[in-house]
């Protein structure tokens, strides 16, 4: 199996396109760093002696708005306000100022937006990894080895996942390095506050960012799995890449639109891939829980894999 993964890895990394992807990711991170650095030098951290009073007034206005609107307040707005109020109260109580200086952590958190690009590149690799063998004609030589097809496909999927994880590691490592150089490390460790199930808890910043990356990359890994499945089933890399990218950019939006009207939107893959909604935001459909989303993700994952492996194993290779 290691040999097979080595093979796939070699085939990915002996193509110049792969380096273009990694290069683009690094360039985008660098540009983002330069931009933020340039902006930062213009302004200074606001005067923060009065932050407690500021938060109190903010909370009062939130509460007032909630009371005024009473029953008519939209569910997600209400939950959003409750979350803000709880976080602010916690800050006042434990003396944690919201006005922290922009540091490496802020930068790493900002560049996590680029995970979308890492996802895009992983989808490109996933969409091509099976389909290309067919279009190159090399599938004929690949499948006449004394190995079960399942193993060959498995090695390909593992390679896709490893490639995705590598891109994430590169992004995280490079933005931490660049952020550290440009913005420095904070003098004292500032904890990260998160609100889950009505309580506020503290978390170390490093741990928070890794978890944040992990949660954000679920979407990307699921879409890469889908691209991989389409690639294996339809042997068409353009279809695999095109459809997956379209869903990556539109899937969330469309599901959100449907969710406004229909409850069944919660069974859509895109309603569930964003697990951050349970920690930092409001679930897309009322009644969705973390457990429900994890089960849905697992169901979709198994569905994609079953399809890919079944079709690939049965296929008559006659192209």
């Amino acid at each position, binding site marked *: 199996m290691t040999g097979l993964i080595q093979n796939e890895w070699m*085939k990915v990394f*002996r193509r110049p396109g792969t380096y273009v992807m990694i290069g683009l990711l690094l360039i985008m991170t660098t540009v983002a760093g330069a931009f933020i650095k340039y902006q930062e030098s213009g302004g200074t951290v606001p005067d923060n002696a009065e932050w407690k009073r500021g938060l109190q007034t903010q909370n009062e206005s939130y509460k007032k708005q909630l009371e005024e609107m009473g029953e008519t307040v939209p569910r997600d707005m209400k939950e959003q306000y409750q979350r803000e109020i709880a976080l602010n109260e916690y800050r006042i109580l434990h003396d944690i100022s919201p006005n922290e200086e922009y540091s490496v952590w802020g930068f790493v958190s900002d560049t996590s937006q680029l995970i979308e690009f890492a996802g895009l590149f992983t989808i490109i690799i996933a969409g091509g990894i099976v389909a290309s063998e067919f279009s*190159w004609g090399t599938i004929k*030589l690949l499948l006449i*080895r004394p190995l079960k097809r399942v193993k060959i496909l498995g090695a390909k999927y593992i390679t896709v996942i490893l490639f995705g994880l590598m891109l994430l590691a590169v992004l995280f490592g490079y933005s931490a390095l660049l952020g550290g150089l440009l913005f420095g490390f904070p003098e004292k460790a500032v904890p990260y506050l998160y609100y889950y199930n009505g309580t506020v808890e503290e978390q170390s910043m490093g741990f928070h960012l890794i978890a944040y990356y992990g949660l954000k990359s679920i979407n990307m890994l699921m879409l890469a799995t889908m691209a991989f499945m389409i690639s294996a089933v339809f042997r068409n890399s353009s279809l695999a890449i095109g459809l997956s990218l379209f869903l990556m950019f539109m899937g969330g939006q469309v599901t959100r639109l449907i969710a406004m009207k229909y409850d069944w939107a919660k069974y859509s893959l895109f309603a569930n891939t964003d697990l951050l909604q349970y920690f930092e935001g409001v679930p897309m459909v009322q009644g969705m829980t973390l457990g429900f989303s994890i089960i849905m993700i697992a169901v979709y994952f198994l569905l994609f894999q079953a399809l890919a492996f079944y079709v690939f194993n049965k296929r*008559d*290779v006659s192209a």
Partner: protein
Amino acid sequence: MDTLVEIQDVTKVINGRTIIDSVSFEVKKGEVFGFLGPNGAGKTTTIRMLVGLISITSGDIKVLGSSISTDFEKAVSQIGAIVENPEMYKFLTGYQNLIHYARMSKGVTKEKIDETVELVGLVDRIHDKVRTYSLGMRQRLGLAQCLLHDPQILILDEPTNGLDPAGIREIRDHLRMLARERGMAVIVSSHLLSEMEMMCDRIGIIQNGKLIDVQHISDFVQGKEKVYEAEVDDPAKAQRLLKNKYPELPVQITENRMLLPLVRDSIPEMIKDFVQADIKIFAVREVTKTLEDRFLEVTEYKGGAEHDRTDSK
């Protein structure tokens, strides 16, 4: 001689159409078996079934006793194959391609790779990208890829397709050598008859998915009886003369030539008779009955009725 590959009553049906219809044959150790047929007759389909790329609808293929469908890994580990063109990863070097395939079989050492590269004569260019290879070199790399794991059976689909005469000769010599010296069973397919004639020991002729004939090449080419063509001034007279001597002989006459199937030893006799009868002889030459004639004979005779069937490619 022991049988290495057994094709037992193999049938392939795709979308209700029978592409291959109960084909059976076997290939023995040290033998080059030619698989001959017009385009779309089912050569490639059969070969794909042989290497497990497509499933078998009914029947079975046994490689050294292991079934390709139920015991794929064991059966295929004895097979080295090129299916259609030797498609390699163009962005890798020849050597990286070989490493790639070596990792997929058990026990292929670095030395073995080097040895194979030397055998196919690619030592100078093996570290260049396959993209820069000529077709002949790709074909040789394809052959190297087949031989890495020391298989006992070599299967090549149209191995000489697109090669120049030198390349064709090279491949032919390689195959003969592998069959003779290593005792491998080689199965090649082609629609080029002259090619097969020089390469194979036995040929199977396939048309419209049916194996219509399996013959030893020597049966046609080195048979005792050959066809001779005599060019004379008075064929009618000559025919009468021959009729007296060999009443059974089917003599064909075309203008001033006559075709006569005769044994070599009786040719001088015939010439003597002609000369005594005052028939002018301009030429007597041997017409080698080629595989091509045989092939056309066989396919026309047996496949003519189903002529309107479409190709299965």
